């Protein structure tokens, strides 16, 4: 049997490399959204470090064989961050990087929200908020029934946690002891209409997850070492599902987008794009 090696790069991709990858993903996001003319930069930028850690280091997957049965699964429940997922998939080699500029255009494989039937590497169709965790529960259950070792990761937005279905899925996951399931919450504390705690309060969030039977770990969602060590720690949990509350900054990496609620669903013009890319490429910090 062929030996399987992990990920689009290697299992040993270092922290500095991953941080560089995250910057590359952020640059793709900015360019894609500028070209597309519509979309959601804020939440894609806030979860770029998490996605970089997953796709370029933690997940076991083979871009040349997207249907490999033992691959780890990743579901982007916050489907409006699609540009981030597409950028990661392209950088891994699931499809050409050049295709990223077709985002949201007619006849493109890159729909406004992820669609598994169009884009190689997309595991589930998402976009209507609150539905990805249920799909992840089903996949985790399927892994157990099929006696497969793969793990399932679901990336959730914090505003998305206001959907009741999330908590239905949270109950299900702990009831059926889905310890092969990891939920990661991009806790950037902003949603379309304003701060989450002004629109619809989520606190006390850790207590909520714990009360639903989950192991809850709070991290800095931009600290690559912490992201990696927490994903590894989650693998050691064998009794219950794990939720990682990743505290992030919406719009992270672009100074004028950081913590600005308007950049949830507004795209940069040419001048703003140039400034953003300038900052992200490291000439300014």
């Amino acid at each position, binding site marked *: 049997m062929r030996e399987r090696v992990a990920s689009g790069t290697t299992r040993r991709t270092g922290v500095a490399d991953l941080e560089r990858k995250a910057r590359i993903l952020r640059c793709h996001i900015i360019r894609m959204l500028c070209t597309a003319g519509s979309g959601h930069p804020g939440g894609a930028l806030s979860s770029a470090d998490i996605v970089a850690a997953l796709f370029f280091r933690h997940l076991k997957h083979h871009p040349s064989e997207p249907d490999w049965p033992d691959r780890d699964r990743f579901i982007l429940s916050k489907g409006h961050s699609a540009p981030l997922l597409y950028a990661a998939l392209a950088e891994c080699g699931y499809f050409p990087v050049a295709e990223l500029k077709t985002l949201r255009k007619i006849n493109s494989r890159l729909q406004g929200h992820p669609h598994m039937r169009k884009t190689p590497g997309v*595991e589930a169709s998402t976009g209507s908020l609150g*539905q990805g965790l*249920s799909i992840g529960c*089903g996949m985790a*259950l*399927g892994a157990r029934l099929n006696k497969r070792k793969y793990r399932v990761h679901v990336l959730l937005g914090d505003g998305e946690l206001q959907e009741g279905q999330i908590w*239905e899925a949270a109950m299900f996951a702990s009831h059926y002891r889905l310890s092969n399931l990891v939920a990661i919450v991009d806790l950037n504390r902003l949603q379309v209409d304003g701060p989450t705690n002004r629109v619809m309060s989520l606190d006390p969030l850790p207590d909520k997850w714990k009360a639903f039977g989950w192991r809850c770990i709070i991290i800095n969602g931009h600290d690559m070492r912490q992201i990696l060590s927490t994903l590894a720690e989650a693998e050691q949990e064998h009794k219950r599902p794990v939720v990682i509350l990743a505290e992030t900054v919406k719009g992270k990496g672009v100074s004028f987008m950081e913590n600005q609620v308007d950049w949830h669903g507004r795209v940069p013009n040419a001048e703003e794009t140039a400034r953003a890319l300038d900052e992200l490429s490291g000439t300014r910090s």
Partner: protein
Amino acid sequence: MTGSVKSTRDAYGEALVEVGAENEDVVVLDADVSKATKTDGFARAFPERFFNCGCAEQNMMGIAAGLALTGKVPFVSTFAVFASCRALDQVRNTIAYPKLNVKIAATHAGITMGADGPSHQSIEDIAIMKAIPNMTVIVPADAVETGKVVRTAAASDGPFYIRLGRVAVPSVTDVNQPFHVGRGVLMQRGGDVTIVACGIMTVAALEAARSLGHKRIRATVIHLPTVKPLDEELIILSAQETGAMVVAEEHTVIGGLGSDIARLLGRHIPVPFEQVGIMDTFAESGEPWELMEKYRLTSEEIVRAVEKVIERKKRGLTPGYRSG
């Protein structure tokens, strides 16, 4: 009337155990109504493949999607009103859009669900499910056909909505006739009018045809277990042969089987046409057969509709339009 009397939900429960024995990938999900939907038989036979999701239909649809993505063949059951309305976004976006192999077997459809009242009586589920791309919609007439439908669904790829009833109905379909998705069943042939029906109304259509026979009106009766995709050829050919058509369904007349057939006839052969169904109203609590009488889902109502279309056919009249 030949054949045994049994509800389609009972037949579903029995068929599930059979397909479960044949195919280890079959899994069953229910939302705390397994005794009513009859998935409890499967739960007893294969407890490791039965997952109660509690009163959480939306999550249940997502779980089914996830299981389908791992190669499982999930049958998902709850009452039709919850499958089609409560969990509609989940059915649309996580199951139908990516065309996942999920079988939604929804019971207690129509007003024959009875005394629980309109909150639990699904009268628009055919319209809703039929409108979703990629969805196959099946409304079996009886227990015999339900067994065949369940076996076919388990062996077919893609999302299915199977509409099942609560009350016992006589079996009128032929045990030996195979079920094919998208193919209607010519129950009997006559030259004067075509009656098309699905589900529980197929029995009423056959009764109506007998009554019409006493009045020397010969009716073709077509049972359409597959509401989507529609057996267009069978309907058009029969319309050509009889020149008049009545459609009967235990569903609102808006958007159901009758609507699709009217659309088809309008395009190809606009013969005199009438619908028997629920007239854009919520019903009420009551015994199933009382409700069928009060809301005019009876063989007598089909006979009246047939007489109307035959009158129009004879005179070459289009139906007069009265506003209001």
